[in-house]
């Protein structure tokens, strides 16, 4: 059975701190790993990673994939209160079916 495990389950930081979120996976057939930010209901797409060692960056967010050790990290630097959300990791074992982790809840306090 495919497994996607995210850690920590939740964390609380202060504005300006850096956070690192982890996602490890075990899937039968890996194609890509995706990160989403979920506020209220709909997840919004952040990154798609398909190759090891290539860092993707978008503003204060960055992510990297290690296909040998089967994990990815998502970093958020200089956190702001607007970064408070649930961050979801998903792995695509085939062309269309994503297996999601339970998410990491990030709370950024002013």
């Amino acid at each position, binding site marked *: 059975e495919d497994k*996607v495990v995210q850690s920590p389950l939740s964390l609380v930081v202060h504005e300006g701190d850096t956070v690192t979120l982890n996602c490890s996976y075990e899937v039968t057939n890996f*194609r*890509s790993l*995706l990160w*989403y930010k979920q506020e*209220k*209901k*709909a*997840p*919004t*797409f952040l990154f*798609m990673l*398909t190759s090891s060692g290539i860092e993707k960056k978008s503003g204060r967010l960055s992510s990297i994939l290690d296909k040998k050790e089967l994990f990815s990290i998502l970093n958020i630097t200089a956190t702001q209160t607007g970064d408070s959300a649930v961050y*979801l990791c*998903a792995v*695509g074992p*085939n*062309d*269309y*079916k*994503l*297996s*999601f*982790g*339970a*998410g990491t809840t990030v709370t950024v306090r002013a």
Partner: protein
Amino acid sequence: GAGVSQSPSNKVTEKGKDVELRCDPISGHTALYWYRQSLGQGLEFLIYFQGNSAPDKSGLPSDRFSAERTGGSVSTLTIQRTQQEDSAVYLCASSLAGLATDTQYFGPGTRLTVL
């Protein structure tokens, strides 16, 4: 352009009633997905439509759940004889061609509460 839309945004129903949830995907997207997110849980895949191919229903939790996609666009998820454990947020997503490298764009979801 317009994103994925879902209706209703909230639905409260009594145990044993049937409910219908609607999803309008992004125009031109051939792939459509339904997911369920229970409180404190990750997203759970329910069903996948791709063009005119037979849908992948492998994630549907029971035969009380069914889904249709008419004309390759709008989709309806139907839950018959609802149970309290069906309470969750039901999310719909669409993507351009259904490839793993395609981005899935999510709708705002329907929060279903079964009393």
